[in-house]
């Protein structure tokens, strides 16, 4: 029996872009040019080839394909417009203080417990209303796209926020390659379910009905700001931040940015996301950052920009669409955002 072992340099069959996709991608990029100009408002888009100095950030052993893509990344492709206020959080804070309920309810639980998550090998099922679905190795999803660094504000629904430099690829790119059919209206995302790896899923008191599910309208998902992160701070994602693949939608509350994605489905009906399932009066489908619509349990008018201290709580006004209104407000024209919260 002949067993063919691929050499590391060999081209995977899945890396070869079918011509139809290639062409539609060009059309798509052309269509984006207009929005791309709008993206400049998100900040000075001064992409650089120089990797920023992340010397304090602990490095770990990323796969070779990740390193190759990273080394060719476009650094600081999107940066905050007000760098004085939007200072990047220290890596220790962004990786040590977050919610990932699969690993517990405390803010430091993910960092303490996510070591059990196995991220290699990792594959993602792309299915539903697509012509080019299937199960894809993470490498095959990521490598056809240009890696970019985007420094986004992340606003948690709990009224705190951090500025985080993500490294990854455009979500639109991935969706486009899957070739959505005309029936596709929404994108539904799913996190891994594996109670052996994820202690939070073993709790019999969990309110979340696993898997964690999130969703976007197709036009939201295709927006140039919507991002699939594979890394942050110039390295691959640490497990607790949703390794190896997570969503980042900067104008929505953080819980929309689903972590450790194993499935992306293009669907016709609006998906029911996990938090909506638990408390529909508190968490809507859209979950756009909106200082005028309070969460029933706390105000959304301000946020605590982290890290803060006892003497400087760093409370700042929350901005509409988390400060990305120029880019995304048109997605919601004519909608009552008090009803569609």
């Amino acid at each position, binding site marked *: 029996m002949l067993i063919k072992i691929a050499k590391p340099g060999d081209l995977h069959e899945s890396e070869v872009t079918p011509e139809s996709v290639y062409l539609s991608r060009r059309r798509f990029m052309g269509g984006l040019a207009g929005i791309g100009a709008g993206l400049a408002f998100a900040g000075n888009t001064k992409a650089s080839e120089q990797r920023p100095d992340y010397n304090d950030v602990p490095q770990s052993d990323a796969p070779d394909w990740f390193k190759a893509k990273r080394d060719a990344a476009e650094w600081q492709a999107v940066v905050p417009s007000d760098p004085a206020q939007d200072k990047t959080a220290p890596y220790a804070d962004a990786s040590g203080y977050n919610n990932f309920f699969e690993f517990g309810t405390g803010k430091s639980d993910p960092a303490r417990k996510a070591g059990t998550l196995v991220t290699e090998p990792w594959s993602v099922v792309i299915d539903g209303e697509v012509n080019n679905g299937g199960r894809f190795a993470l490498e095959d999803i990521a490598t056809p796209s240009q890696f970019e660094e985007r420094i986004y504000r992340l606003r948690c629904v709990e009224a*705190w926020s951090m500025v985080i430099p993500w490294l990854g690829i455009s979500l639109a790119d991935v969706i486009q390659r899957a070739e959505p059919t005309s029936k596709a209206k929404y994108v539904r995302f799913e996190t891994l379910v594996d109670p052996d790896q994820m202690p939070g899923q073993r709790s019999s008191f969990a309110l979340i009905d696993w898997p964690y599910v999130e969703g976007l309208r197709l036009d939201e998902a295709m927006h140039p700001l919507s991002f699939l992160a594979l890394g942050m701070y110039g390295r691959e994602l640490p497990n607790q931040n949703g390794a190896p693949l997570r969503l980042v939608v900067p104008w929505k509350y953080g819980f929309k940015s689903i972590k450790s994605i194993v499935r992306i489905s293009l669907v016709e009906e609006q998906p029911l996301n996990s938090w909506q399932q638990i408390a529909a009066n508190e968490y809507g489908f859209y979950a756009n950052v909106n200082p005028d619509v309070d969460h029933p349990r706390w105000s959304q008018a301000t946020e605590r920009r982290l890290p803060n201290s006892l003497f400087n709580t760093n409370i700042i006004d929350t901005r509409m669409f988390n400060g990305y209104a120029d880019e995304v407000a048109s997605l919601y024209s004519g909608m009552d955002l008090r009803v569609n919260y």
Partner: protein
Amino acid sequence: MSMPAYIFTLWRASVFVAALVPLAWWGWQVANNMAGPEPGRYLLLNIGLGALWLLLFTLSLTPLTKLTRWKGFNLIRRQLGLWTLAYAVLHLTCYVLFILGLDWARLGSEIVNRPYIIVGMLALLGLTALGATSNRWAMRKLGKRWKTLHKASYLILALVLLHFLWVVRADMQEWFVYALVGALLMCLRIPPVSRTLPKLRQRLKQSA
């Protein structure tokens, strides 16, 4: 069992120190950057949970006395009650300073609009009333009504648990454990149940 008086003095002093230790520990952690990127919230949550522990300790003193007849438990009741109040006041102080950033207008609107804040404030008011009437003068003045008034501590426990329940987001386990302990302590004060405690003591004694 009779013990020399200095034992009880020592006992009360150790309880006082033990109640101070967590505050010192959290303060030390904050001072040494060990409390994470949001130290104010770290203090808020820990002190709030500490207040609940103290309230549960305070309410366990009567059943423990019935079970053991050791008078040391009675001697620390007022102290633990006042510590509960102190922690609760610190908890509110953290909220006003670190979450609201001393924005008094927002404090007003939060008290009116957020059920969990309303319930927390009611619990604090209750603790304040009990703290204010915990001195000898008030005990004499109130007479029999004092006991009735101080049974409100169980109502306060229920309010605190509700306050806690309303901040739970993703998993009920931690809350459930506290609620179970709280419910047990409440059950132990139901007359038929509480009457069994001295009997249980007899039985334990015989079997010993």
